[in-house]
């Protein structure tokens, strides 16, 4: 009997230890990113890095200004969200409120196919189809633009937005729905006056996660945005090439000598990226918690 209790305790401790590995990994990521990132600030001040307008990592007068890369990421992500949020939420409403359950059962996994397609395949498709299309349509010198990136990224963010919004909408208690219909409201009135407001925090969590996914995307953007590290203008910059933070890391890390300023600068960019996605996740998480509480 005694043995058995020890064995049970032992197993529980092992399982506990293994699950704390996740915390250790997160801690190590912070440590290793920041450790190398901080070394940049021996040469370049933090302020110069955050507000610098030029990213010239290899010229004689090296400059490591984050602004063009940060604004590039922001522009592409904003475009993607503007395009995928209305589309994604509309599809989620259709799937959970209007479509026949059998149709919904088919549509959900079908849209999730998008989540499974590797980003390099999206990038390849963008490169051979959308890039020439953009070039011809807008009569541009190159079709590798911020807008091209936004469209591809918007498509990639759709499954996240649709799936999580759909979860939020279908977890609205049916008593709310029936109450509204019983009062004589039409189905559409019920949807936009009762169900959407009730599901709003869940939907905003979906949007946040979509943003997180978009800001971290690398391969697709590297292949379709042209990678020019200049501060984009707004809104005309949508038709110019841009360079995102993620693409910068992926493009330059392979060629940079280890231990150089440039090497540390890329880790500093990685740290900024990590902090941004970390915050977005925390926000999405706290929104989600709130909304669970409400529905219960």
């Amino acid at each position, binding site marked *: 009997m005694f043995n058995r209790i020890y064995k049970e305790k032992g197993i529980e401790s092992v399982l506990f230890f293994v*699950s704390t590995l996740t915390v250790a*990994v997160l801690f190590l990521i912070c440590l290793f990113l920041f450790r190398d990132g901080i070394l940049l600030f021996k040469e370049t001040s933090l302020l110069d890095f955050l507000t610098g307008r030029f990213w010239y990592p290899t010229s004689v007068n090296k400059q490591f200004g984050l602004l063009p890369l940060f604004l590039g990421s922001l522009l592409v992500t904003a475009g993607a969200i503007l395009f995928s949020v209305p589309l994604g939420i509309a599809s989620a409403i*259709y799937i959970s409120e209007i479509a026949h359950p059998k149709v919904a059962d088919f549509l959900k996994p079908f849209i999730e196919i*998008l989540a499974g397609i590797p980003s390099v*395949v999206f990038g390849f498709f963008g490169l051979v189809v959308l890039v020439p299309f953009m070039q011809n349509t807008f009569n541009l010198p190159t079709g590798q633009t911020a807008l091209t990136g936004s469209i591809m990224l918007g498509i990639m963010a759709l499954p996240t937005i649709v799936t999580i919004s759909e979860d939020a909408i279908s977890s609205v208690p049916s008593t709310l729905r029936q109450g509204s219909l019983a009062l004589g409201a039409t189905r559409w009135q019920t949807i936009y006056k009762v169900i959407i407001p009730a599901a709003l925090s869940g939907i905003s969590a979906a949007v946040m996660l979509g943003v997180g996914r978009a800001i*971290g995307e690398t391969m697709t953007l590297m292949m379709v945005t042209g990678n020019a590290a200049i501060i984009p203008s707004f809104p005309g910059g949508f038709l110019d090439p841009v360079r995102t933070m993620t693409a910068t890391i992926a493009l330059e890390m392979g060629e940079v000598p280890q231990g150089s300023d440039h090497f540390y600068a890329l880790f500093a960019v990685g740290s900024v*990226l990590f902090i941004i996605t970390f915050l977005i996740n925390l926000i999405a998480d706290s929104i989600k918690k709130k909304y669970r509480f409400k529905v219960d």
Partner: protein
Amino acid sequence: MGLSSKTSEKIAFSLLILATLTVVGFVLIILGYIISNGYGTIDIEFLTQAPNRMMTQGGIYPAIVGTIALIIGSMSVALPIGIMAAIYLNEYAGETRTTWLIEMAINNLAGTPSVVFGLFGLALFVKYFGFGPSILSASLTLALLILPIIIRSTEEALITVPKEYRDSSLALGVSKWQTIRYVVLPAAIPGIVTGSILSIGRVAGETAPILFTGAAYFLPRLPDSIHSQFMALPYHLFVLATAGTNIAKTRPIQYGTALVLLLIVLGLNIVAVLIRRHYRNKLKI
């Protein structure tokens, strides 16, 4: 007074249908394009031969081997850790501060960009541990990337096991661990398998994490140990499409590689959906 409520409902519903059709259209166009352009390239030789003539001819065999090596390497690390962590979180953990911390860590790992995992893999595995650019470094990096997916799907599988299963087992005097081992886990297997399959798809398709941890543009020989560099399908496609010796000439190989990658990932996804469907209703009491 504007439109009648009936008319506005009709307009709204049509717009919602239109939006959904647009999304479905994206899926169809992308799949259709890759499939129709790629299927002419794929034959036995394409799948079993190495690239030759400066990558402009031949097949993608070494890239397939590399991708399989990454799948085996990363799954053998992430699967045991992920399942154990999920068992702890679902069966043992109380609502403590530590549990909150673990949950927070998992959420954040799931949201961390893959290129950041690549940087981390470079700093920790390639440099700090001295594994160099290798199958080992890349597999470990990918293992961390899929860990949250495996934990989440296993947790979901464990939650759906009815409480009655546990209660009846415990009432028979079976210990908690034996209950988990012989009652709860077997019932959760389909869910765990589904999650694993989706993770395999993720490993097969990720490029950014392997860019600096061991993927090679071209290797004359197959890798002979976990310390070798490797070729992998997604990286192969990326290099051919953006930096190959002759981008236009290798277009057919690019379409073929994209299609093979797509078929692997979609095949795995379809299997996962079917398993989920098949077992969804079996557990209900």
